């Protein structure tokens, strides 16, 4: 058991480093470097660009750059972001909590709503309610993230003024209490989170519906009915608990998004998170920042998948006992 966890952690670490390496070299191979945007700026001298390149080490071979990066990263130094002018650790340290907040909220809400909807649909499979919910889900699921975010922004914020047009909080206003501050943060969080919830709930609901429909005809559910249990108890206590494993798996797959952020939603709603960092780092060829984001992301993804494994153990006694024996 313990050795299994350790090997998973090691596995995840190796994967993270490999991903970071691939990203690093691909970005290196792409035209330009963090300073190439200065080429079109007549007020920046080529000498300064060359000197800055040398300072940042971009004149060395990519492999050498990567090795020195990894060795520094092993010591906790994630390097220096040329595009933001500060250490990568500081940039990520600032962005990560924002992304965790947004994605955590979105995942929590979309799983709660998605599971409830999926269970309700499966329990009434084939009814008008089920079909309508499926159709709406499919429609929302197929919407492009960027487009939906913009439409919600334009309509709910721009036209109806129900929500702020972006950012983390109302700027430059002193809140009279912690409660007001909290409400203000919630108000700003609502629209980006809603976008993500609309997009992902459908998937969760479909997953939950299918999983429950697969379980409902099983004999132990009939057994539960035959025992004389109420329908509610049969569906929730017997069938649903056995239809949770696919959802836990789905949750494990969703966790990386916690770290990666929702690129377009963060972009549209001016949410300063990890997704935007990744985009910025690619646009500006910020090797250190991208590699740092991926390394941190890899570590957290590994942690997330361990968490998902732990959850799977919690919902499935078979795995628990199999380990005991």
């Amino acid at each position, binding site marked *: 058991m313990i050795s299994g966890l350790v090997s998973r952690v090691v596995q995840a670490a190796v994967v993270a480093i490999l991903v970071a390496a691939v990203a690093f070299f691909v970005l290196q191979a792409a035209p330009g470097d963090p300073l190439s945007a200065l080429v079109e700026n007549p007020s920046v001298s080529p000498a300064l660009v060359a000197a800055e390149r040398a300072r940042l080490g971009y004149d060395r071979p990519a492999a050498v750059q990567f090795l020195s990066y990894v060795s520094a990263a092993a010591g906790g130094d994630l390097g220096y972001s040329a595009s933001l002018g500060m250490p990568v650790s500081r940039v990520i340290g600032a962005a990560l909590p924002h992304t965790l907040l947004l994605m955590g909220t979105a995942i929590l809400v979309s799983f709660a709503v998605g599971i409830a909807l999926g269970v309700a649909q499966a329990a009434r499979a084939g009814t008008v309610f089920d079909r309508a919910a499926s159709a709406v889900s499919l429609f929302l699921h197929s919407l492009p993230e960027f487009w939906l975010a913009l439409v919600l922004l334009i309509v709910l914020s721009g036209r109806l003024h129900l929500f702020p047009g972006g950012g983390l909080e109302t700027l430059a206003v002193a809140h009279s209490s912690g409660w007001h501050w909290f409400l203000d943060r919630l108000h700003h969080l609502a629209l980006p989170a809603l976008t993500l919830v609309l997009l992902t709930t459908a998937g969760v609901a479909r997953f939950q519906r299918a999983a429950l429909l697969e379980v409902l005809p099983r004999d132990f559910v009939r057994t539960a009915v035959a025992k004389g249990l109420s329908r509610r108890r049969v569906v929730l206590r017997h069938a649903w*608990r056995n239809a949770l494993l696919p959802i836990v798996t789905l949750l494990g797959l969703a966790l990386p998004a916690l770290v990666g952020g929702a690129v377009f939603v963060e972009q549209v709603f001016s949410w300063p998170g990890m997704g935007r960092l990744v985009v910025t780092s690619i646009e500006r060829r910020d090797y250190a920042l991208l590699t740092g984001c991926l390394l941190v992301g890899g570590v957290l993804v590994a942690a997330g998948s361990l968490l998902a494994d732990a959850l799977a153990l919690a919902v499935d006694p078979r795995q628990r006992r199999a380990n005991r024996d």
Partner: protein
Amino acid sequence: MTPPSAGVGTPDVHPTPTTSRQSGPPLLEVRDLVKHFPIRRGILGRTVGHVRAVDGVSFQLWPGETLGLVGESGCGKSTTGRMVLRLLEPSAGSVHFDGADVLALSGARLRAMRRHAQIIFQDPFSSLNPRMTIGAAIREGLTIHRIAAGEAADRRVRELLSEVGLRPQFADRYPHEFSGGQRQRVGIARALSVSPRLIVCDEPVSALDVSVQAQVVNLLQDLQRDRGLAYLFIAHDLSVVEHIADRVAVMYLGHIVELASATDIYREPLMPYTQALLSAVPVPDPTVRSTRVVLSGDVPSPANPPSGCVFHPRCQHPRKDEACTKLVPPLEEKSAGHWAACIKQPPTTVHWEVQKAAGGTRQPERYLPDL
């Protein structure tokens, strides 16, 4: 006693079993039970036809009696068993349990009825909730029906486990930690926990090793003797039923085609289908010779059953003729308490003139292959 007067599938008929145990009103009375499953096609789910899984089944079951329900897979026997407990909603027909109209019950009253009628499934593993300890699974029935709670319920669980031959301390284990036979004992304990009067045994031993099958059947027989249980014992194999059933009903394509006491069925099977089934029973003694009746062809689709006698495409009866493909054979009493649906096995209410009019060329004649 209702005299059978029409063919199988006609609504107002059910055979009247005669048995030594018969006394007082039946515990379970099933009349003309029908289950049609719609066949849906296309994205709109239009119904394009029906699978007639059960097409007019009637029987009675008395307290303490075991009725075997036998047939090949897909014949509708399990569907019948589930409709009796309303685990499936019948399309038509009626079910009376202890005089009450089961199909009219709903909500709490239906759940209360279920306390008295339990089911044991074929696959003892899939019928147990993998997320629950077996103790919890057994206990749930006790608490739901307020039979016992707290310490008393725990004690009752342990008693039930030992009653079915399991160690009481197994209560906190999960189903996957047991062998197949043990799981089926758990399933039995679970069914027994609410002290039912009827247990539908849906192929309870088919999934078990032969050596274990006998133990479980013996257990069921012991329990029946001790508690006066009635069993509706569903099996695809006549040899299993032989040991436990008082009477046997043979089903084919949603119809009961023969119903008689176990002794009669095994000694004198009248329906050619029963004959074929019996010849498929493995005989323990290899020196016993038999003329094997071999079923040829596949079971026809219940979505599109053959005309006339549904068995006619596979029938080995030497007098089979055109009339068999036209006339629906009624389930009729061939001898006392022995019902069969075959117009070529005399006596029959379908007279020769009627048969000839339907293209019959061969007069009915008793056929009993040497089994």
